[in-house]
């Protein structure tokens, strides 16, 4: 078992009037190489949970083990373990601080003690992974980039560390549709190649449908669903209960079902939903 979350509780501002319980006795097990999506409304504890997985917060109660060692503990072993977990924050402003894109992305690899040739190779690779042209952007100041481009730089700086566990918090917010698809495809391909563990926090159910095989849903600090992607994302009742949007293809299939048509509803992507409708309506394109 790669990661074990045991009875994890997190309370912010405990003992003050602003006390807020963010996580309540969460238990999870994550195997090496899994691709996991985490969803839930604002305030459900998603960001708190992933910060715990990266060892950035101290549990109020319970613990998080990475390969059997509490990740938040003091000492060299835990510190080494924390370096293997890369967390890309939702707001790039929170993590970007260097003068040029190159130096920003090189910061992590340099900290790993790699030589400059390897650092440069990793920077180029990471920028290409996120769909930026290294030649065009390497010497620009990060804050002169557009919002979407800045976010890609922030992500590249985490990828360049080649973490064993990669955690992405809303990786595609502010990205144009094909940039977002390309990014997901590349991260997905790299994950399969390296068998890295991938954890993605997202409201974008279509992104999760493309990228992950298991989805964990949180609500008010508790795990309310944990299962195969297709099963969780087509659970219309669950999605509505936790305030999430039903993907439009699922909403369409659901409406057709209510109108008496025998369609399956667990088809999230437009191409899948179109094939399902074509099958039931007996169209030529039904075999895909």
């Amino acid at each position, binding site marked *: 078992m790669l990661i074990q979350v045991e009875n994890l509780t997190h309370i912010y501002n405990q003992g003050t009037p602003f006390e807020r319980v963010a996580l309540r006795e969460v238990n999870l097990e994550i195997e090496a190489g899994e691709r996991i999506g985490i969803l839930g409304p604002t305030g459900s504890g998603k960001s708190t949970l992933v910060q715990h997985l990266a060892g950035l917060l101290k549990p109020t109660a319970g613990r998080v083990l990475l390969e059997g060692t509490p990740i938040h503990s003091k000492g060299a072993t835990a510190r080494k373990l924390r370096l293997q977990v890369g967390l890309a924050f939702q707001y790039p402003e929170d993590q970007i601080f260097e003068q040029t894109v190159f130096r920003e992305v090189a910061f992590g690899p340099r900290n790993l003690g790699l030589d400059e040739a390897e650092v440069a190779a990793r920077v180029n690779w990471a920028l290409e992974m996120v769909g930026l042209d290294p030649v065009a952007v390497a010497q620009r100041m990060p804050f002169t980039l557009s919002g979407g481009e800045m976010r890609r730089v922030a992500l590249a700086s985490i990828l360049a560390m080649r973490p064993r566990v990669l955690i992405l918090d809303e990786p595609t917010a502010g990205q144009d*549709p*094909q940039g977002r698809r390309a990014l997901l495809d590349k991260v997905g391909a790299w994950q399969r190649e390296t068998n890295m563990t991938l954890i993605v926090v997202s409201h974008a159910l279509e992104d999760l449908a493309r990228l992950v095989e298991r989805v964990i849903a949180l609500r008010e600090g508790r795990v309310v669903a944990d299962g195969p992607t297709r099963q969780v994302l087509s659970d219309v009742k669950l999605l509505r209960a936790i305030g999430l949007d039903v993907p439009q293809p699922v909403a369409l299939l659901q409406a057709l079902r209510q109108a008496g048509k025998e369609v399956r509803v667990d088809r999230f992507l437009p191409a899948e939903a179109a094939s399902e409708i074509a099958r039931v309506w007996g169209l030529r394109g039904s075999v895909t």
Partner: protein
Amino acid sequence: MRPFIEIENLKYVYPSFIPPHAGGQRGGGGQIVALRGVNLTIEQGEFVALIGPNGSGKSTLARHLNALLLPTAGAVWIDGLRTSDAHNVWAVRQKVGMVFQNPDNQIVATTVEEDVAFGPENMGLPADEIRHRVDDALAAVGLLDYRQYPPQMLSGGQKQLVAIAGALAARPSCIVFDEPTSMLDPVGRRQVLDTIRRLNAEEGITVLLITHSMSEAAMAQRVLVMEAGRMVMDGPPAIVFERGARLRALGLDLPPIVDIAQRLQAWGLPLPQGVLTVQDMVDALC
């Protein structure tokens, strides 16, 4: 009558930001041309969506509409006022409000009502007029009950509504929304989109909505598409989204329902034109 927004051959070049000592390769160096001759008119009361890939110039264009940026060449008129005339700047900013992506960067005060009052106070209005405007603005976004709240106690969607109320308190004719929902969860997104729709339909506010969500763009009466600093499409959503191949070539996408409809049509299912929503599709199929 002149249109509310008139843009004529607008060009904008960002000054070079490359630090002089930066080593390594130079990315073509020099200036970044963001807008390459944009022509556009928008009438009072329109609801217009603006889409385009990252870096196509959407935000740069938006920042010209309230004189946050001034044209390198060409001109922008707001309600007949040329933005590049220095004495028009405040009138232009009163007429066109802006709401940005990240609500946390737009909130300045310690309570909701103080935050909304910030603009009117800066305009030097009398106290009772400020009170009146703040209450109206908070009522318009449905946050009157939250007026005493510290903004950080609100959800992302509510914070964005505070930012909208702040824009409304200046009594603008137009509000430009620059990806107002891309950092919100679905509940927040619905709150913000419902509010935008209502402000347009009921208060007659001209809306320019910049978005990466094709479903959001489909809510507008008119969709503009930018690519590499140029306006490349302009029309009602049903017409613009018919050009799926062209949009894909631009790195854009179709709203999921339009995508499904076009696939089914390609497979020989007759569907009426202009299917945009789940309901349209169910009506067509059942």
